[in-house]
């Protein structure tokens, strides 16, 4: 009964970060410590750069905010002016990636650098699933957050990038809790619940967010009932580490920050995803494939922050016109091979 009485304050979100940092130390830390001791004697280093805690911490600062897909400096300036907490630089918006077909790769590095030197907010960029070299290039030029994304064409469907190797935080997509926990185990600092990219249709994002929530509720239920055996079985059946399943069960939420993504096109879409437990939202094609990007960007920022205040969401929704919302695509009309969400489980 003690755990019930303490409620969810028994474990804080930052406790989970400390725990995840220990997990990483367990895997790589001992080797690193040995190397460092050899190089520098036993000197204590006063400033520790790019540690896992700093990566989880950075992502924590994005909560309650909107990250917007942009393809150039002009769009990045609109996003910053609207109050976005970050931009994601792409070569093409997901809607255009879908239309163009062919192989989608990371954006032009010169475009990313131009965006970085024109705005003050964090800049993210996408690399292909499994393409560690694209990720290294993005880290080298100083991108703040790397999205290992299914919107681009995967180069390795079986193995994602080992993200513990990087100082830069990574975000990965997930359609279910087990997929999310596998990405966290590989070193992802942030999860975005996948929708179907470039459709302007929030249906898939809703479906996957609810699936994740139900699995978390199930695990939480096992934990509150003291049924660790059931958590063990869940971990085994879903191919996730027991420790991460247990951490999720204790915390009652994903152990890292979770944004919603895929098909968000209106302020109401953003507020809906926040109600479903998202910590923030990514807006892809929804803003710059609409007829009113400036007003829509501001409105989505407002609706995301004030999602639990219907009066303000009404105000935000009135800032945009449904006549110029992105037309969108019915997900049921897409052929199975056209789905991006199934890439790299």
């Amino acid at each position: 009964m003690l755990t019930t009485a303490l409620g969810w304050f028994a474990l804080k979100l930052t406790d989970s970060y400390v725990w995840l940092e220990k997990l990483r130390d367990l895997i790589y830390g001992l080797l690193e410590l040995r190397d460092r001791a050899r190089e520098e004697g036993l000197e204590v280093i006063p400033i520790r750069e790019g540690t896992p805690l700093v990566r989880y911490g950075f992502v924590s600062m994005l909560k309650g905010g909107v990250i917007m897909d942009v393809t150039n400096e002009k769009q990045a300036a609109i996003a910053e002016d609207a109050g976005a907490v970050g931009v994601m630089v792409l070569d093409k918006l997901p809607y255009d990636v879908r239309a163009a077909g062919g192989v989608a790769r990371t954006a032009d590095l010169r475009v990313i650098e131009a965006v970085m030197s024109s705005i003050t907010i964090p800049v993210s960029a996408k690399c292909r699933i499994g393409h560690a070299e694209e990720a290294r290039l993005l880290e080298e030029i100083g991108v703040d957050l790397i999205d290992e994304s299914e919107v681009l064409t995967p180069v390795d469907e079986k193995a994602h990038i080992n993200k513990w190797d990087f100082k830069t935080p990574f975000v990965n997509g997930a359609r279910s809790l087990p997929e999310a926990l596998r990405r966290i185990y590989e070193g992802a600092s942030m999860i975005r619940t996948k929708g179907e990219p470039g459709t302007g249709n929030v249906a898939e994002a809703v479906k996957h967010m609810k699936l994740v929530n139900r699995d978390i509720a199930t695990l939480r239920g096992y934990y509150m009932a003291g049924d660790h055996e059931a958590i063990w079985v869940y971990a085994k059946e879903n191919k996730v580490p027991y420790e991460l399943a247990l951490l999720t069960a204790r915390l009652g939420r994903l152990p890292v920050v979770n944004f919603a993504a895929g098909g968000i096109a209106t302020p109401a879409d953003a507020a809906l995803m926040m109600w479903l437990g998202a910590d923030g939202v990514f807006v892809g094609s929804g803003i710059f494939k609409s007829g009113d990007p400036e007003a829509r960007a501001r409105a989505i920022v407002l609706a995301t922050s004030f999602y639990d205040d219907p009066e303000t969401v009404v105000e935000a929704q009135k800032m945009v016109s449904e006549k110029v919302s992105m037309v969108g695509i019915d997900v049921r009309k897409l052929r199975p091979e056209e789905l991006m969400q199934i890439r790299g489980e």
Partner: protein
Amino acid sequence: MARIGVLALQGDYLEHYQVLKGLGIEARYVKTPSDLRNIDALIIPGGESTTIGKLMAIKGMVDAVREFVRSGSPVMGTCAGAIVMAKKVFDRVLGETNQPTLELMDINVIRNIFGRQKNSFVARVYIDEIGDVVVAFIRAPGIAEAWNGARITGYIEHPQIGKIGVAAKQGNLIALTFHPEITGDDKVYRYFIGLVKR
């Protein structure tokens, strides 16, 4: 007992709230001017300073918080919060940002002084009146100068940047360019609660 408000427009307000609750303090989220009526002190959390500044302006929070400060109530800003409280804000690369702030403290804050996210770090720093704290600097700003009643109360000696201010005080206003809430160092909170008039 002191009731501490946490500005909950954007950023890591949950982390501040959880540290306060962990210390047994009554914490409340603040989003609109009326929420300021029932609290004794306010924390402005980390996040994106441009986003927080714009959302505050939309909801009439700029005048409301300035009024709250005039009545003598303590306010503490961490990272983005420190930027939001400053009268002058520059970016290391882009120069003067002209972003909306509360213009509460006579300090000049330089955004992203240590570089981009890959240069973020954890360090131990000494802050006057608070002591040694282990805290996270995440795309952190620095405090370049303070004038009038403001004074810099802590510095870091950074291998690339050199010596730069990381904390400032002006009356009951505290600006910290780092995150005590991420490392969970509660010394800062005990100090801040001590500023509330009994």
